[in-house]
């Protein structure tokens, strides 16, 4: 008797230890959730120091856009091995683009004799045309060396008479004017004398003031402006020509400031660029493919357009806002039907797309459960075909 009870117990325990019958299915579903394996994804990436290090660019920037294209392609491959064809990456990175500073500085204040020496300026003893200033510089410095900077103080008439201090920078074989500040502007920036006492002070104050200075001359994000400013500092180069290099004097410097759309900041010789890459199954290549995710009305549009051709599938798409992808189903959308449907949609939403324009269309599907799929189409000979 007892033996039978024991036997029953053993059978019971044995059967129980086999656990829940649905555990295997749960495990599969869970695994799918945790490890998405191969999938189509859209990455937005701003390269980090680690990313630059990974491709051997220890300075955190690229030498050129071409170099960026090559190296980022490699980076994406190792960084996103699970992404499948049709994935895209929008990558933001830095390209090294240095701006020049001067080698030798000349300071000069235009004198009455200088104005008198030119018939155009002799009468009022001031300039009233920028060409007159350039003519003067050419005369005054007939044999400039590369990266010579002239900090020129002169009187200029344009409605009112102002005394200006602007820089003239000889670079690439030509003089280029660099805006400086007037004495009044230094006063506005809180300076008792028309100069800054330290470069730190200049770096803080100038960006703030530039917003004001360019209020009526708006800049766009990414614009770099060059500014010449004066600094009262040790005369290490003997700019004043007194033979001493330990006294103080006022020197002029060129500063570059970059506008980000809202604020100016000191330009540190890097430009930020953004480029889209597409994955073709083997390589990440820069491309202009547009990604589009269908909205509710799009299914209706496609469904209505194809109702006469594919009654069941078209009706289903319009009704449920998705494409039925169950093989054998009365409402099944095959790949070819989807391409046809996307063509109809693109002709409606992008009638003027260029020849060769690629689209990756992402849409909701039903295959027993809800999900999404994507297909790639390209405009070829004016028609949208599978890509």
């Amino acid at each position, binding site marked *: *008797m007892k033996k*039978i*009870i024991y036997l*029953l117990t053993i*059978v*019971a325990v044995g*059967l*129980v230890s*086999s*656990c*829940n*019958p*649905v555990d*295997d*299915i*749960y495990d*599969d*579903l*869970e695994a*799918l959730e945790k490890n998405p394996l191969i999938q189509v994804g859209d990455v937005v990436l701003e390269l980090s120091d680690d990313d630059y290090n990974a491709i051997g660019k220890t300075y955190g920037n690229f030498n050129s856009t071409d170099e960026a294209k090559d190296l980022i392609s490699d980076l994406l491959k190792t960084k996103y091995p699970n992404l499948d064809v049709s994935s895209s990456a929008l990558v933001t990175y830095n390209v090294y683009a240095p701006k020049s500073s001067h080698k030798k500085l000349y300071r000069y204040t235009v004198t009455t004799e200088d104005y008198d020496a030119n018939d155009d300026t002799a009468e009022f003893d001031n300039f009233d045309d920028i060409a007159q200033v350039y003519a003067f510089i050419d005369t005054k410095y007939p044999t400039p060396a590369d990266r010579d900077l002239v900090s020129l103080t002169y009187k200029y008439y344009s409605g009112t008479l102002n005394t200006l201090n602007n820089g003239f920078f000889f670079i690439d074989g030509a003089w280029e004017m660099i805006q400086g500040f007037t004495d009044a502007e230094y006063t506005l920036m809180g300076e008792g004398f028309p100069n800054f006492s330290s470069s730190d002070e200049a770096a803080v104050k100038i960006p703030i003031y530039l917003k004001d200075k360019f209020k009526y001359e708006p800049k766009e994000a990414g614009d770099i402006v060059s500014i010449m400013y004066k600094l009262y500092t040790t005369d290490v180069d003997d700019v004043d020509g007194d033979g001493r290099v330990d006294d103080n004097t006022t020197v002029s410097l060129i500063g570059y400031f970059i506008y980000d759309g809202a604020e100016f900041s000191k330009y540190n010789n890097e430009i930020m660029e953004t480029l889209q890459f597409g994955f073709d199954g083997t390589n990440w290549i820069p491309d202009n493919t547009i990604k589009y995710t269908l909205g509710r009305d799009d299914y209706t549009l496609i469904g209505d357009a194809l109702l006469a051709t594919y009654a*069941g599938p078209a*009706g289903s798409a319009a*009704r*449920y806002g*998705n494409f*039925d992808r*169950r*093989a*054998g*189903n*009365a*409402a*099944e959308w095959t790949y070819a039907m989807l391409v046809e449907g996307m063509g109809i949609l693109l002709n409606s939403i992008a009638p003027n797309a260029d020849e060769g324009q690629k689209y990756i269309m992402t849409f909701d599907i*039903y*295959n*027993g*459960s*809800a999900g999404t799929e994507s297909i790639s189409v390209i405009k070829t000979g004016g028609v949208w075909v599978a890509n």
Partner: protein
Amino acid sequence: MYFTIVALLFTAIAFSQGTITGTIVDGDSGEFLPGANVVVKGTINGATTDFDGKYSLNVSQSSGTLVISYIGYKTKEISFTATGGKSDLGRTTLEADASALDEVIVTTYSLAIDRKTPVAVSTIKAAEIQTKLGSQEFPEILKSTPGVFVTRGGGGFGDASLRMRGFNSENVAVMINGIPVNDMENGVVYWSNWSGLSDVTSTVQVQRGLGASKLAVPSIGGTMNIVTKSTDAVKGGNVIMTTGNNGYTKYGFTLSTGMLENGWATTIAASKTSGQGFVDGTEFLGYSYFLNIAKKINDNHSLSLTAFGAPQTHGQRQNRLLIDDFRTSERGIKTNTDYGYKNGQFVSIEDNFYHKPKMILNHFWTISDKSNLTTSVYASFGTGGGGGFSGVNKFGKYNLNYRDDEFAPVNLDIIVDENKALGLAGSETILRASRNNHRWFGAISTYSTALTDNIELIGGVDIRSYKGEHFTELTDLLGGEFFIDNGDQNNPGNIARVGDKISYYDEGFTSWLGAFAQVEYSKDNLSAFVSLAASNTGYKRLDYFSYVNTDPERETDWINFFGYSGKGGANYNLDEKNNVFANIGYFERAPFNNAVFLNFRNDINAGAENQKIFSAELGYGFRTSELKLDLNVYRTQWNDRTETVSFQNQDGTFNSANVLGVNALHQGVELEAQYRPTDKLRLTGMISIGDWTWQNDVTGVKIFDDQQVEVDEVDIYIAGLKVGNSAQTTFALGGSYEVLESTTLRLDYNYAGNNYADYDPSARGLSAAGVQAWEMPAYGLFDVGLTHRFDFGGFKASLNANVYNLFNSEYITDARDSNGTASTALVYFGAGTTYTVGAKLNF
């Protein structure tokens, strides 16, 4: 039973001489027999056994004979001597024997007799129902029976489904006291209509395959023969109270007057059951009542009136969900997306409410020693329906506009606000009920006569008249002013309000005229029968909505189908222990109403074919006092099957496909055994292995939405597909052990495997040809139970506790296939661990 009662008449009670006590047990199972009659021979003095099978009887004579009887058992007589006022007769065993059932009952109810009737039979007795059933669905009492697969469907109260040998309920004849209860129009059995029946059932006999019924009944998978209590011979009663998981509460009582001197006897029983349901949003409230009044007119005539019913209302889970939905939902396997809250109140969007009282009047007439005639006249009136919505669907499981979270209850207040905002445009979303009311009258008369000592002739008629009324009732405008309905051709643009009929409204009429004859031969070890039944089924349809009033098409003529069945079989008892039997049968039955009138209109299907079923079976039985063993092999070929397959759309609405002309082959082996090595221990076991497949593809299957609008026509490729939602391999092992004299422990294990998802008719196009439906993971569940009997203030009382799915196994019982994979199948999970604890007090 009635003959026992006869014996008790015209006797007198004398003064007491002493008290006789004892216990009656089932000779088969060793279980106590509650409700057995114990009567002093030649007197009306008697008692019935309590839940423990115990009786106590005051006698006026010092010695005599006790007649112990119980329906379905051989009556036994034992002598007693009441010396010193008290006598304990100890344990008396009754041997089960359907042949010992009142002959009239056996004949009228078409019960099978062991080692005589050549069909495969399993019998469940009252004691097992009362101890094991608990909060389970009534058909679940059969879950350890070979060939039977029972699930709770969505899990709502009474939403169980019973399948036999892979056939669904419309192909399993369910008979209560010999009266067929399958729906006259679609053959379905709704268990919620019969939820109180378990309290008053004395025996359930499952006949697999052709069965013993002489009527033309849909016993393709088998027959479930439910025999209710009739009148108890002795006065008494009981009170029960049961509680369980999720607020399950049941109260009930039974009262019997016993046979009175004037020949009248009455038994009444009633109960109330309520609870929240294991599945979220399946609150339920059910009542049941049972009344039996018997009158012994004279020696040859007796009358018996039985009336019973079970009004109920319950929340349902209609939408199957993905396995991943259940896995990720906070509510786990209890998740139900078909309910919500309105103004803080629970609202079941998919509720069900029904009441189907059934009344049966039996007349038993003993014409002579050789002949008798029994006539049953019956009626049932069904009222009720099932809820759902109409208009804009805002109930999708992922529709977060109306749910706080995926799978969270629907926030109906938002829908109310939107409907209010629509003002005079009317509600765009409403709740409705699909109503299905009916009136059913019938009569069955059976004449039985012994032609010779060995040959019995049984013949009779079976007449039925049925009217079904189908319409959609607007039940809740959800805040709006009205709802514009275009269902009625006579009143398009109808401004409908609560209580109005919308969408569709029609009546179906079914008339049934049947006759049957059976010849039985029985001599020595051989018994055999040949039976013929013929029936004419007439259908007629009247459509109030789809046709204008003046259109003669709105009412059809009667469409008649002639069906017949012929079957025969023989049993041979090789010796005292071994018997073999065989049966074979062929029948044609009328297609169902919806295969005759297509498209939910008066479109008569000129090509509607009778369904043709051929079945053959071999059986072997082995009997000793310890071991009972049965082995069957069967093969059922079913051609031109008509089937309505309902399936769920991706947005949670339901479509149905009318699939005509399918062939199916069901074959298998079944083994069942009972072993009783000692008085205290009983072991049971069974193995059932089936191979049930669809055999052909079907073209031109029309698909309709739930508003009965045709939405598609498809070809379905299902040849070779496994018949779904019925475990093709089942296995059970159970034991009950009397640990103490008053305490019994039970342990049962049930295994179900090879259970395939039902195919989705909309997803079986050409490219799905040959793709097998998804196979659900096999599962095994443990149930444990304990019964303890004790004295409670002078009353006999018992405590009964059951734990179902002891180890809280998570398992899938029903699935709808999508593309043969687990991740896309829509499923119902079975219940986790549930329990009931109940007490019963006898008086």
